[in-house]
Structure formats: structure tokens, C-alpha cells
């Protein structure tokens, strides 16, 4: 049943439609293949790259294990060892664990949500290329002996010591900042995709649990990564220009870095863990052959974990000498987060108990992963208790704990996901036999490798030691661990072999081979259009509950079965009830995204080596590429206002404001940007708390200039509001004049903002107070600069007839940016001007 009132198309008409769709969604061939932005390609490349980085980091881990197999070993030098474990942690965290879920999400989400594409396919491509380039840069450094060697946590003052860390620390900071940009881009993409691009009828209580998890995780990325970016900025300013943020001799404090790093670092663990559990939430119902029991409980767990995970960061700092009362608050939150985690495990068990379980390789990896993860969770409860952590902190007990959590909670479910979803990639299953062998090798190898570490840790073996004396009681534990590590690696190798071995001779499996209930199983590996037509959803498990759904979708009996204007199109629906509100035209194949990613990569790489001119050139190319991308690909005025999407429904092709995806993307990006800003302000007040006089006797920026800057930014914002109002009233001349006025006011505001610290002669290298004042002022003024670019962009759009009263998306989004900017500016300059006098 379709509810379609229209007459059925003839076979020939249908074939013609399909040919057109295929042409529009075609992946280019030859070298242009790499310019594809289609979610299936990007997802696949992303996943493959992340997996390669994982294997690389795994080899590093094996080198580390060989070195530690016997006491007083000299297989690796101390310095190589330090580079190896630093890179192992860094790569696993930043280049595997987070990106692999972005890959899976980009690959699966559109079809799972019944969409053709995510709303910003070019942004996905930009994210992937940034990630790939940054990853190769960071990993490659070890072959030149220049890899970071101060630990993946990069604590200053060791990591700010140029003599010790060389350019390794810069490679870490800049390479990873670049990758963090990619992660935030993916987060924006996923949040907007999940909120606005679900198939009609897929209300929030109908969403696949994977989407719920990913929504929460993307939100977490938005609030977790920016503090690290803020920290990276402070860190790089210290390394490059000697601004003493972490130098105690000049009022800085190394603990600020630890706070910023772990505000990122702890949510990161859940950012890694939740998507893997999300895979389990898809696999368990399929193999129990029934809907999940406790859908709402899973939502509770995901949202609860998302929040609580931000109250845990100090549990990495239990030994830094903070007051016990502070430690105890974080210990309490760390215990509380175990509750939602436990709920998820019981939801899976309950679902299995209420169904009839078909045991298969994905379930084997899933269940084995849970058994491992539960141990990691229990030791997590232990180390979250402050007294026990005083002993266990920075020992091999923690190494064991974190690997039990991450390998049980993330790697095993990901391998389960590979076995489960492989048919979507190739229309063939992976080998059951190899899967079972791989599982037992990985499961036993893992436990042999990591269980003894609990004991060696409590027997006093600290982390990050490149060797150890023979008579201290760790020899056997370490030898066993090394043997286990190689057994584990053999299991991983079998998985790799299973995935890459040629399979042309193997017969193709029927569609939906596991008899799953969710929409991603309707997609066909050969077709790039995602779904043939966008269905109406009436169930959480539509394939199980909506008879004839697959045939109707494939016959094009639902929305958007055809092509108009040669554009790639998908539906935008409302947040809660998924009612169709717009037909969205998404960007197609483009070289601009690669250009933007590579030139931005050029900026970061050139900065590492202090090649200032290259940096500036690359920055200009990046800016040009991004503007060209926006100019040609967004807010395009369509030829007709409305589009007949089928089933008797007509939808607008152009929307602006909260209806549109662009507005959401701006809002979400600015939420992340605001978090980075809040982290910098945290730094400002942090220095105030640790010093009796945080100015260190240095003159401040005074009151006049900062307050003037705040006032001018406010006026500029008012002029932007005015511009929007004139544009609404269809008065283009007045709009342009207001924009121009806003632009001049912004220039003046920026000047006033910098005049404060400049005219009072604040020297950022002298003491941390002038340095933090400069950073806050610069942050705000640079945002003002971006505001100016946006104003110019709107002016140009208006002058070239690309923006008018009806088509005002550019202006509305820019004004949204300005709402955030004015809050930033008033806070910054208010605090800089007034706080030194108030305290």
C-alpha cells in the first residue's frame, strides 16, 4: 500500500526515471572518482582510512610490547619508545576511534533515515580530506624521528620544552587541530541530518536507535572538542610566540592545560563508546528477531551519559593536589555515569531474553565485547573512587582498564558491525568460519594481553616506562602480555584478510540477509541514489511492520521518485514529527572541497615549520575556495518556488530561518564556537583563582577602549538587525546601506578592541595576564573579521541579485552569527574592561 493517488507509472517511464536518477547521482570515473561527495564513497574512504591508521597504531603497540617483553630490553631506544606510545595513543584516539564512527554514520545514516543524502555532502567530503591529510602528516612524522613524544595528553611544561619535544609537539597540536575541525564538521552534518532529514513519518519515537545515539554523540563533540581547540591555541601561542600560558615563572600554570585537555578527553571516551553501542542496538534486535525492549531506556542512557560525561574530567587529575571536596564531586559524577552504562547492557540482555536469539558472528563479537567491557566498567567504578585512584593512577592498572573499556566497548562492536553491515558494501557476507577463528583469537589474545596488566599495575608498574628492572616482580606478567598481544594481533589480521580477500566467486546474498527491520537494508550497493523514493515511515522497524514497503520504494511509489533540473534532492522534515517541509537540493561532485581541505591543511603544516608566507598564501586559497563553494552551492535561488515531490505534495525549494538546514548548521557551529570561547574565558578566571593578584602587577587594557569596543560591536549588531528588517521590507538600497554601516562599525569595533591592550603597552610575553587579555581580545576581533567577510558576502549577494526579500537565507544566517558575536564581544570586552576593577 502506498497511499498514492497518482496513476501507476508504466515500466518504461519508471526505467526512464531510474536512468535520470542514476545519472544525477553518478559517481565520476577516472581520477575524478576522488572528487565524489556521495555519502557511500565518503563513508567508505573514511572507514578505510581510519582502519589503516588503526593497523598502523596497532603495529606501534606491538613494538611497545616487544620492548617490554623482557626486563632491561634494548629493542627500542627510550626516545623511539616514547614516540611510539605517544603516537599509538594519539592515532587510536584521534585517527581511529572517533573517525570510524563518523565513517559508519556518514555511510549508514542517510539510508537508515530514508534520506538520499546528508544535508551537506560537500562538508562530509571536506571533513574526510582534512582528516586524511592531517592523519598522514601526524603518522608520517615517526619515520623522520620527529613524532610527538610527550604522551598523547601532551602535558606542559614537558611538551612546551622545545629541546625535548622538537617539532613533534607542533605536529601534534596543529595536525590534530586540523582533524578536530573535520570532526566538528562531521558533527554539524550529523546533527542537522538526524534532526531535519528523516523520512516523513519518522517521528522522534520512531528513529532508529543508532540515530539517537549519533545525535547525542554529535552534540557531545560540539561541546567536547572546542575546549581542546582553545587549549591548542594557548599551547601553540606559547610554543610559537612565547606567550607564557603554562610557564609558572611568568604567572602561567600547567594545570590549565590539564583541565582543558580532559574536559575534552573524558567526553571523548563516551564519544567513542556510544556509537559502538549504537551498532549493538541495531544488531541485537536483528538477531533476537524482535524490536528492542526498552527503547526509551536507551534514549535515557544515551542522553544521560552525554550529560554526565562532562562532569568527569577531573578524575584524570585526582593526584594533582586539588582539594578533596573538588575531587569528590567528580568522583560522584563518575560513579553516577555507570548507571546509564549499566542500563544499556541490561536493555540488550532483556531484548535477547524476550526474543529468540540466532547466534552469528556479529553476535559473537557483540557478546564477547560486552563480557570484556563489563570488566572495564567494573574497574572504571574502582578507579573513579578517589582513594583507589591514588594508588592506581598512571599505572598499568589504568592501561588494562582503558583497553578493556575501549576494545570491549568499541573495537569488538565495530568488528561486529563490519560482519553485520558488510553485505551493504558488497552484497556478500564475510566468512563465518574466519569470523569465528578471528573472534576466538582476538578474545583470548586480548584477555591474555591485558588481564595481567591489572596485577603488574598494582605491583607498582608505572605507565610509559620503556623498560624495568628484573627483580621487581613484573617479568612474567609482561611476557604473558606480549604473547597475548600477538595472539590478539593475529585475530585482527584474520579480520583484515576476510575483508580484503577477493570474493567475486562467492555468490551474492539476497537483500537484507539477516532479516533486519530497519531501513538501511533497502539500499543496494550498486545504486548511488540512497533510496529509490523516500518512503513514509510508520514503524520503528519498517521492513518488519510495513508489508510491501521495499517493493513500493523500488517502484518509486513514494516521494521524490524523479529528477528535476538535474539536481540531487532530498526531503527536509520537521524535527519532532517529521512532516515534510522542504525539498532540499544538496551539493554534487566538486573539486572545491578537496581544494579547501588541502589548502587548509597547507596552513596547518606550514605553521608547523614556521613558513609564514606559505601559511598566508594557503589561508587565502582556503578562504577563496570556501567562498566559491558557498557562492555556487548554497542559497541558490531556484527557477520555481515549489517542487512537486509526488503523492500530491508540493514543497518549497528555498526556505530560510529555523526551517532551513543552513540556519541549523550555523546555530550548531556557533554553539561549538561559543564553547571554545567559554574555555578561553575559563582560562581567564582560572588565572584569577590561582593568584592573589592575577595581573601580576601589569597594567590592564583600561576601561575606555574595551567598553568602546563592546559598544561598537553592539551598534554593528543593531545595524545588522536593521539590514535584515529592511530586507524583509524589500528595500534593497536601505539593506545595503545598513550592511555597509555595520561593516564600518565592525571595523571600528575591532580597532577599539585591539587598541586597549596595544595602547597600554601590554606585552604578552611578559606575563600571563597580558597574554590572556590579548588572546581574548584577538579571538573576539578575529570573529569580528569573519563577521566583516560575511557582511561583504551579503552585500555581494544582494548586488548580484542572489538575495532579496523572499530569498534571504544568507542574511538570516549571518544575523544569527552576529547574535553569537555580540554576546561574545560584550562578554569579552566587558570582562577585560571591568573585571580587574571589580575583583
Amino acid at each position, binding site marked *: 500500500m502506498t497511499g498514492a493517488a497518482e496513476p501507476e507509472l508504466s515500466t518504461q517511464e519508471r526505467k526512464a526515471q531510474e536512468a535520470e536518477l542514476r545519472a544525477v547521482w553518478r559517481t565520476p570515473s577516472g581520477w575524478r572518482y576522488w572528487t565524489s561527495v556521495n555519502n557511500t564513497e565518503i563513508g567508505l574512504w573514511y572507514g578505510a582510512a581510519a582502519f589503516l591508521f588503526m593497523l598502523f597504531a596497532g603495529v606501534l603497540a606491538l613494538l611497545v610490547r616487544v620492548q617490554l617483553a623482557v626486563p632491561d630490553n634494548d629493542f627500542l631506544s627510550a626516545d623511539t619508545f616514547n614516540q611510539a606510545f605517544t603516537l599509538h595513543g594519539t592515532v587510536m584516539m584521534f585517527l581511529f576511534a572517533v573517525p570510524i564512527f563518523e565513517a559508519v554514520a556518514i555511510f549508514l545514516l542517510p539510508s537508515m533515515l530514508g534520506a538520499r543524502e546528508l544535508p551537506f555532502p560537500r562538508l562530509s567530503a571536506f571533513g574526510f580530506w582534512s582528516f586524511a591529510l592531517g592523519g598522514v602528516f601526524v603518522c608520517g612524522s615517526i619515520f623522520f624521528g620527529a613524532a610527538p613524544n610527550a604522551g598523547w595528553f601532551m602535558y606542559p611544561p614537558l611538551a612546551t620544552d622545545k629541546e625535548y619535544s622538537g617539532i613533534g609537539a607542533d605536529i601534534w597540536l596543529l595536525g590534530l587541530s586540523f582533524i578536530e575541525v573535520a570532526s566538528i564538521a562531521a558533527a554539524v552534518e550529523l546533527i542537522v541530518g538526524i534532526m531535519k532529514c528523516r523520512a516523513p513519518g519518522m517521528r522522534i519515537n520512531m528513529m532508529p536507535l543508532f540515530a539517537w545515539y549519533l545525535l547525542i554523540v554529535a552534540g557531545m563533540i560540539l561541546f567536547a572538542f572546542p575546549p581542546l581547540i582553545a587549549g591548542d591555541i594557548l599551547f601553540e601561542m606559547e610554543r610559537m610566540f612565547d606567550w607564557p600560558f603554562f610557564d609558572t615563572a611568568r604567572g602561567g600554570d600547567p594545570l590549565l592545560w590539564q583541565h582543558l585537555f580532559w574536559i575534552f578527553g573524558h567526553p571523548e571516551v563516551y564519544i567513542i563508546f556510544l556509537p559502538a553501542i549504537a551498532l549493538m542496538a541495531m544488531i541485537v534486535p536483528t538477531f533476537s528477531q524482535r524490536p528492542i525492549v526498552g527503547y526509551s531506556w536507551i534514549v535515557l542512557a544515551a542522553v544521560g551519559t552525554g550529560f554526565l560525561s562532562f562532569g568527569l574530567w577531573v578524575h584524570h587529575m585526582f593526584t594533582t593536589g586539588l582539594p578533596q571536596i573538588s575531587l569528590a564531586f567528580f568522583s560522584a559524577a563518575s560513579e553516577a555515569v555507570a548507571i546509564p552504562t549499566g542500563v544499556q547492557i541490561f536493555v540488550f540482555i532483556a531484548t535477547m531474553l524476550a526474543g529468540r536469539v540466532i547466534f552469528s558472528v556479529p553476535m559473537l563479537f557483540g557478546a564477547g565485547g560486552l563480557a570484556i567491557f563489563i570488566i572495564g566498567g*567494573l574497574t572504571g567504578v574502582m578507579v573513579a573512587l578517589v582513594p583507589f585512584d591514588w594508588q592506581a593512577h598512571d599505572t598499568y592498572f589504568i592501561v588494562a582498564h582503558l583497553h578493556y573499556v575501549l576494545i570491549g566497548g568499541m573495537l569488538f562492536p565495530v568488528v561486529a558491525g563490519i560482519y553485520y553491515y558488510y553485505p551493504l558494501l558488497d552484497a556478500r557476507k564475510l566468512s563465518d568460519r574466519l569470523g569465528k577463528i578471528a573472534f576466538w583469537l582476538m578474545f583470548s589474545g586480548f584477555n591474555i594481553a591485558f588481564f595481567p596488566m591489572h596485577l603488574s599495575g598494582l605491583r607498582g608498574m608505572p605507565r610509559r616506562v620503556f623498560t624495568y628492572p628484573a627483580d621487581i616482580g613484573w617479568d612474567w606478567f609482561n611476557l604473558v602480555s606480549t604473547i597475548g598481544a600477538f595472539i590478539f594481533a593475529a585475530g585482527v589480521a584474520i579480520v583484515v584478510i576476510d575483508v580484503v580477500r577477493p570474493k567475486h566467486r562467492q555468490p551474492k546474498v539476497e537483500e537484507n540477509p539477516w532479516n533486519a527491520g530497519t531501513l538501511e537494508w533497502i539500499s543496494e550497493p550498486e545504486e548511488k541514489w540512497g533510496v529509490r523514493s523516500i518512503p513514509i515511515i510508520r514503524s520503528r522497524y519498517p521492513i518488519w511492520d510495513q508489508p510491501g514497503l521495499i517493493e513500493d520504494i523500488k517502484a518509486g511509489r513514494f516521494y521524490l521518485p524523479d529528477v528535476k533540473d538535474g539536481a540531487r534532492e532530498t526531503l527536509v522534515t520537521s524535527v519532532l514529527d517529521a512532516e515534510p517541509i522542504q525539498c532540499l537540493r544538496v551539493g554534487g561532485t566538486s573539486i572545491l572541497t578537496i581544494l579547501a581541505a588541502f589548502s587548509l591543511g597547507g596552513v596547518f603544516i606550514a605553521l608547523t615549520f614556521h613558513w609564514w608566507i606559505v601559511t598566508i598564501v594557503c589561508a587565502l586559497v582556503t578562504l577563496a575556495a570556501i567562498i566559491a563553494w558557498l557562492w555556487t552551492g548554497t542559497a541558490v535561488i531556484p527557477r520555481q518556488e515549489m517542487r512537486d515531490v509526488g503523492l500530491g505534495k508540493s514543497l518549497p525549494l528555498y526556505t530560510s530561518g529555523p526551517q532551513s538546514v543552513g540556519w541549523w548548521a550555523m546555530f550548531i557551529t556557533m554553539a561549538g564556537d561559543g564553547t571554545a570561547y567559554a574555555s578561553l574565558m575559563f582560562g581567564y578566571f582560572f588565572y584569577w583563582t590561582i593568584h592573589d593578584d592575577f595581573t601580576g602587577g601589569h597594567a590592564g587594557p583600561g576601561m575606555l577602549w574595551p567598553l568602546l569596543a563592546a559598544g561598537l560591536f553592539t551598534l554593528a549588531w543593531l545595524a545588522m538587525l536593521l539590514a535584515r528588517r529592511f530586507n524583509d521590507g524589500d528595500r534593497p538600497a536601505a539593506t545595503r546601506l545598513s550592511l555597509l554601516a555595520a561593516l564600518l562599525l565592525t571595523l571600528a569595533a575591532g580597532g577599539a578592541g585591539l587598541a586597549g591592550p596595544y595602547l597600554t603597552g601590554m606585552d604578552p610575553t611578559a606575563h600571563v595576564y597580558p597574554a590572556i587579555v590579548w588572546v581574548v581580545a584577538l579571538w573576539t576581533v578575529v570573529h569580528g573579521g569573519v563577521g566583516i567577510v560575511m557582511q561583504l558576502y551579503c552585500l555581494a549577494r544582494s548586488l548580484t541579485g542572489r538575495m532579496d526579500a523572499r530569498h534571504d537565507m544568507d542574511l538570516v544566517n549571518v544575523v544569527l552569527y552576529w547574535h553569537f558575536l555580540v554576546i561574545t564581544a560584550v562578554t569579552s570586552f566587558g570582562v577585560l574592561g571591568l573585571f580587574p576593577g571589580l575583583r
Partner: protein
Amino acid sequence: MPARPCGPYRPSGTTARSTAIHRRALPLLLIPLSGCSGIQSALDPAGDEAAAIYTLFLVMVAGGALIWLAVVGLLLHAARRREAPWSEKTAGRLIAWGGVAFPVAVLLALLAYAVWLMPAIRPWLAHSAPAARPIEVTGEQFWWRIRYPAAEGMPAFETANELRLPVGARAVFALKAQDVIHSFWIPALGGKMDMIPGRTNTLSLLPTRAGVFRAPCAEFCGASHTLMAFSVVVMEPEDYAAWRRAQAGGNPATGSEGERLFAGHGCAGCHGIRGLTETASLGPDLTFFGQRQTVGAGTLANTAENVARFIRNPDKVKPGAKMPAFDMLPDGDIAAMADYLVGLK
């Protein structure tokens, strides 16, 4: 009490005796967790904090093992095909009781236990009776500077890489760092505390059993983080008092060959030997060096050969060490100096 059989070596000058610390009967499962687990083990407590944490650990291990067995047992049971699957309602109840009610109760109790324990094992000395003046320990790449305060008419003095404490008295430490972050950790006595440049952290420990223990640096601090440890000698109070008294005098000049070379080659420019030289303090103090367990801050056993090896090329023994190599000196000179240093008892 009989001498404990554990520990690979026992220093001269301490009475091998173990004070009564309560040892609970352990289930068989836990045997590998305790007993002779080495001189750097948190599982063989010799201090009040370590013992309290060890008990907490045993409670958690026992509870954790039971929970793991129960949950994994349930998981395996759920994976078996059964004739009659549970109803959705019953399964929902399992989530509510097993996934919520039980964990909330257990975690609440555990958290209360641990939060109560914190001020109990690390009391705030500023609020209690006039506390002992702290022993100042400074972490430097890659060794430990230790300054004892003046006490009972005996002057303050500096030493390095070996800490001596009396059994049964709460010792207070002021912990600092010279260059990068280090972490002060004596596993047998208690938990760790970071040493952070620009800050002074306070830690107090109460040793309950005499013995020799090893204490590693627990925060990654650079190339030779691995080779940065110190020895802790917990002594009977009377032995400690005798040792403390002896420190004031130092090692007066004996006129030996090694001593002359030590001064002649400029060693005294960095290393102080009380009684012999003006106290230089760039590098580790070497007074009574012969009493120490190790050379190079826990790197090698304290023998004349090892001392010679260290003098010849410290960087080879300990990558990144700040002391320059003296391999241009004749072997005889180096050997004489090594003999002299090892003889400083």
C-alpha cells in the same frame, strides 16, 4: 615477629622486623594479589593509607567478580534459544531492577565508603595538632632532591634519591618540581601526589612496617622517566634517630685519592658532600652516598663498578641525564672516585 621473607634485599642499618599489620584471610582466588609481590607493590601494604586502600580494593574485587559472573551468566543464558521468550513486561522489569535499582544502591554505598575514606586517610594537618615540619621533596629531571627540616636541635640537611622515615610516625611531605611535572609515589605506603612546577603539594604518609621500598616517578617526565625512582627506608624510631643525628656531621675529609680527584675534576661544583665541600646543589647531594641502595636515582645497584659506569657516561645509562660525560678521564681516576663514593658510609 619473624622477619618477612619478602623483598630481594635488605639494607644494613635497619632491623629486619615487621610490625603487626592486620592481614585478613584471603580467598584462594586472591593469593596472586598479595603476599610477596615486590618492593614496589600496592598489594603488600606497609603504610596506613596503602592498607586502607588495599582493603577497599579487596572489597571491590570480590563484589566486581560476583557482578561480572552474574551479568555474563545472564548474557549467556539469554543467548540460548528458549522455548518461551520472556514477555516484554518481564524483560522491562529486568532492566528496571538489574540495570537501575541494583547499581544505584551498590554505587551509592561504595561512593559513601570512598568519600568517607578520603579525609580519614589523608587528614588535614593544618587543622589538627601542630604538625611536623614537612620534608621537602623536589622532582628534577631525573632525580629527587630531599630536604629534611631542622628538628629537635638537629640542623636541616639535604640528601637525594633515598628517603628514610621512622616507623609509626606520620611524615609530611612538601612536594615540588623543578622543571616538569613528576609524581611522588611510594606504593607500599600510600597513593601518589603530583609534583607540579609552581605549586607545592602536601602529602602525609604513616609507615606501619619497617623495610626497604622502591618509589618510582609516576608521571611521564621525559626521556628517562623510567629511570627515576628513589628508595624508601622505613626504620625503627631509635635507628632512625641515630641516622638522623649522624647526618649533621656529614663525611669529613679523609685525604683519600678518590676524594682528591672528586674535588680536582670539579665534581664538587655540582654535588655537595657535607663536611667536605661547600654545599653545591646543582646535582644530587652525595653525603653518605655509600649508604644508598642505588646509583642514578633507582637506575643501578650501588656498586663501585656501576658508579664508575655512571661517571663515565651518564647519558648512556640514563638518556637525557643532565650530568656531562667524563669518559675523557683515565679509568683509574674514575675507579678511585667510585671507590671513594661507595665508601661514604
